[in-house]
Each structure stands twice: as structure tokens, then as C-alpha cells.
């Protein structure tokens, strides 16, 4: 039953976004986020929406999947919108004035901009990173992108190794949890009824054997790794090295143009007096 859990939110595929170098995708994501926060005018938000829709199309991931991914933060979105709607003070007369509630034109635009920003932030980053990059590729990307930092004693390799081992053992431990749960059920344990406290207490007989076994595994794995001459990142080479292709350079150029486009649109709209 636990086996059905999918790891991360990676959707295997062969789109251009799937094939981009993970290092490039990390850089793209950072650029994309910066660009989102540069946007200030109506035109630039329209531009952002168009680019995000383009990303969705390029990734060939079902739109419904992406919308479903936003459900958990629906509350935050609504909350931010309401705050912006009611608490933005604008110049001129309020559009609505009932008792102490005043809604200005600026309030509506900020609320809408905020919504666009959050939706695009979430859709864009998840499409660029988590949906189209397998966790292990992402780990490789982070390791090789941040490798220069190890000069400053940042434990980049150690972090990547930890991630790899975690990813390797998650399915194993899930399988084990399943087995332990069945074993405890066979002894009459009940995980599904009773008060919350009762159900939490029922988890203890699962967690303890799971931890004991995880530590035993860690011990054996450490010995096996030592036997295979592991001694940290120093002097270690990699079989698969990441290579930049033309498409990767192209993607970087596009993203820089995207950022530049937003800045230009900001300036343009403020010139013709269509600010906000």
C-alpha cells in the first residue's frame, strides 16, 4: 500500500525541459524568480503569464497536474489576495465604501498581480525543477554546480552523497515499514481507529523497529562503502559528467532575454504613464 507513494513529483518524459542540463535548470529557476520580482506593470505581468504558459506547453505536463500541485497553497493565495484587496490604500476615491471597508483600484490590481506572481512562481519553479528533473539528476546538478564552494569548506560532496543514499533507501525503508505494519497488525495492532493520541501511540511499535533497522543498515552500508575504497569526495571522479549542449546555452539566453523584457516593459509602461 505504501509502495504507491511516488518519490518527489518527477514526471518522466522526454521534452526539451526534461533534457536540459540540471545545472542550467537550477540557474534558470533562480533567474526566473528574480524576473518575477522585477515585474511591476500590467504589461510585464501579462508577459510573465505568457512565458509561464509557454513553459507548461514545453514541458508537456498535463495542466491539471500543475493545478493540483497548487491546491496546498490555495489558502495562502486567497489570504494574500484579501489582505491586498482591503488594506491597499490608493489615491482618489475608493471604488467600494461600505462601513469601514474601502476598496481602491490599486487594491484590486495589487491583489491580481500578487496572485499572478504566486501562481507563476509555483508553476514555473516546479516545471523547471521538480516536475522535469529526477531527484538524482537534480542532486548531481547541485553537486557539480556548487563544487567550487568546497574550496570554502562547504560540504557539497557530503550533502550530495547524503541525498543519493536517502533517495536509494527511501523505497527500501517504505517496503520495510509496510512489512513491520503487517507484522504488528498480525499481532492485533490497530492503526485506524481510536482518538488521535491513540493512533499516534500505535505508531511507536512501527517507528522503533524501523529506526533500529535503519541504523543497522547504515552500519552495514558504511562498511560496504569503505570496502569499495570510499574516503569522501577528495580524489573521487565521476563516470557521468554533465555536458552543456547548444539547447542549454539557448535556454540561458532565453531566460536572460525574459528578464530583460520585463525590465523594458516596466520602463515602457512608466513612460506612457500606465504604471502599477
Amino acid at each position, binding site marked *: 500500500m505504501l509502495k504507491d507513494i511516488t518519490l518527489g513529483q518527477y514526471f518522466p518524459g522526454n521534452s526539451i525541459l526534461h533534457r536540459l542540463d540540471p545545472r542550467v535548470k537550477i540557474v534558470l529557476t533562480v533567474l526566473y524568480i528574480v524576473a518575477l520580482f522585477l515585474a511591476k506593470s500590467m504589461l510585464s505581468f501579462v508577459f510573465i503569464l505568457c512565458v509561464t504558459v509557454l513553459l507548461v506547453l514545453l514541458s508537456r505536463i498535463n495542466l491539471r497536474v500543475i493545478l493540483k500541485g497548487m491546491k496546498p497553497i490555495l489558502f495562502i493565495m486567497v489570504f494574500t489576495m484579501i489582505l491586498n484587496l482591503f488594506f491597499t490604500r490608493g489615491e482618489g476615491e475608493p471604488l467600494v465604501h461600505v462601513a469601514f471597508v474601502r476598496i481602491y483600484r490599486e487594491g484590486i490590481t495589487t491583489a491580481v498581480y500578487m496572485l499572478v506572481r504566486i501562481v507563476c512562481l509555483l508553476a514555473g519553479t516546479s516545471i523547471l525543477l521538480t516536475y522535469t528533473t529526477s531527484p538524482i539528476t537534480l542532486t548531481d546538478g547541485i553537486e557539480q554546480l556548487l563544487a567550487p564552494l568546497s574550496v570554502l569548506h562547504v560540504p557539497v560532496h557530503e550533502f550530495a552523497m547524503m541525498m543519493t543514499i536517502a533517495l*536509494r533507501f527511501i523505497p527500501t525503508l517504505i517496503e520495510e515499514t509496510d512489512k513491520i505494519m503487517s507484522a504488528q497488525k498480525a499481532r492485533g495492532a490497530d492503526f485506524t481507529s481510536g482518538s488521535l493520541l491513540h493512533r499516534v501511540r500505535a505508531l511507536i511499535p512501527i517507528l522503533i523497529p524501523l529506526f533500529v533497522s535503519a541504523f543497522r543498515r547504515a552500519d552495514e552500508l558504511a*562498511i560496504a562503502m*569503505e*570496502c*569499495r*575504497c570510499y574516503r569522501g569526495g577528495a580524489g573521487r*571522479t565521476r*563516470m557521468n559528467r554533465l555536458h552543456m549542449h547548444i539547447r542549454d546555452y539557448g535556454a540561458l539566453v532565453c531566460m536572460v532575454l525574459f528578464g530583460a523584457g520585463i525590465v523594458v516593459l516596466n520602463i515602457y509602461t512608466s513612460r506612457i504613464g500606465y504604471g502599477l
Partner: protein
Amino acid sequence: MTDPYLQIENLSFSYPAQGEGEAAPVLHGLNLQIERGSFVAVLGRNGSGKSTLAKLLGMILTPTSGKIRMGGKEITDPALTEDELFALRAGVGMVFQNPDNQLVATIVEEDIAFGPENLGLAPEQIRARVDSALDTVGMRAYAKHAPHQLSGGQKQRIAIAGVIAMRPECILFDESTAMLDPTGRAEVMQTVLALNKEGITEIFITHNMNEAVLADRVLVMDEGRIVLDGTPKEVFAQADTLRGCGLGVPQVTELFEVLRQQGLPVGEPVISEEEGAERLYALLNQ
């Protein structure tokens, strides 16, 4: 004829004492020589010190006293530098019992690459070694699979591939078939025998008599000592000593022993089932 790969002199070992108690020695002054390219099975009941011996040979533990020489180099020399130890360790591979706890990476070929990567080889060299290791264990088709999608026997063959990609002279197997079903066992044994043919010295710890029978030489350990040492035939002829060590003998051997006790002229001890069948056939025809 003698080209000793492994020489053990007066090897003793005790684990650090726990709490107040004295540290009880686990190995008592072992002496042993193993020929290059031989396939040695090690038998012994639980707690007889087999894994401890394997860990000493694999340089995971250091002996309390005594010497181990491997391929002409003394691996227990306290003057060895970190780098020399590293180079020596690459010459000995170890395969353990639980295949799940030996695989490091999330993709089969990357796991096999793990050892060569640690040795600091060039990417093309690593690729070549990974491919040839995959061929040796017959798992080329699974290069891109995730370990958890494989059967136990397949996982264990990947673990073996990970070890042979380091091109060791010697491989230690510590109950590497114990968690496998008969198919998995057969797969692993086939790989083990094939590697021995290629000249790799193998030390194979097992509780399975039928596997021990396939070796050139069988060692029986009990309470940290080597009790019996010889060809499978010689060792399994000593059924009483074996029983004293908490071990059994292969079923065929036992059958012929009972027949001999009944006064039948069955000849010398038999260890393989085929040979047993032939003898029985001859006996029935008389």
C-alpha cells in the same frame, strides 16, 4: 605449485571489551595459507568467528596480534600510510549478506561505478569497467534499472559487479547467498565459479554444505580456531568432527555413511549428488 596469495601468521583478535568485562578473544592464533586463484569455502556455526576473519582480511578491523600478508605485502604493517592502505584495499573486495545494504546509488550502473570512481579513474575507464562488470555478471540489460526493482539474486550480482569493477585479486563472500531463494543462489554461485575461473582468489563463507562442496578447499572454524582443513571430500568424511562443531554434512554424504554403517560396500565418502547416484546405481546392479 605453491604460490601463496594469502599468508596468516598467528592471527588473534578480540573486540574491545564492553563495560567491565574482559575482552574475550574471538580468534586464537590462526595460521593459514591460501593459494593464488583458489576457491576456499569457510564453514562454522554462528559466532565461530568467520565474519571477524573476513573483516580482518578486508582491512575493516585490525588484528590484536599476528600478521596478514596478501599478494606479498603485509597489510597489517602499522607503518603503512593512508594511501598505501587505500591501494591495498582496492585489491580485496567484499560481498556481504544483505544485498540491500551494499548498494549505494539509485541506478545500477552508477552503483557499479561507485568503486572505480573512488579510485579516481578517468570517466572513459570507469565506463569500460562498468560495462565489462555488467557483462561478467550477465546484467547488461538492467544497467539503467533502480536497485529496488531487482530480485535478491540480481541485486547480489550487482553487488558482485560493483566489487569486480575495482579489479580485485581476491573477493571475500560473507554468507552472500544466505538471503536468497534457490534461483538466486544458483545465479550467484554461477557467477562466483566463473570469477574463480578467471583467476580471482575467493574466500566463501557459507552455511550451505552444497555450496561448500563446490570449493577447492574447505575450512571449518569453531570458537575462533580452524578445526578442519582439506578438500571437500576429506572434510566431509569427518562427519563426527563436523557434528561436534554444530554442523551437518551434505545429505548424500550422510546417506552413504548410514549405508556403510549397515555394512554395505559403498566405498569412500561421496559429496556430490551425481556421484552418489552413480554409486547407488552400481550398487543396485550388483
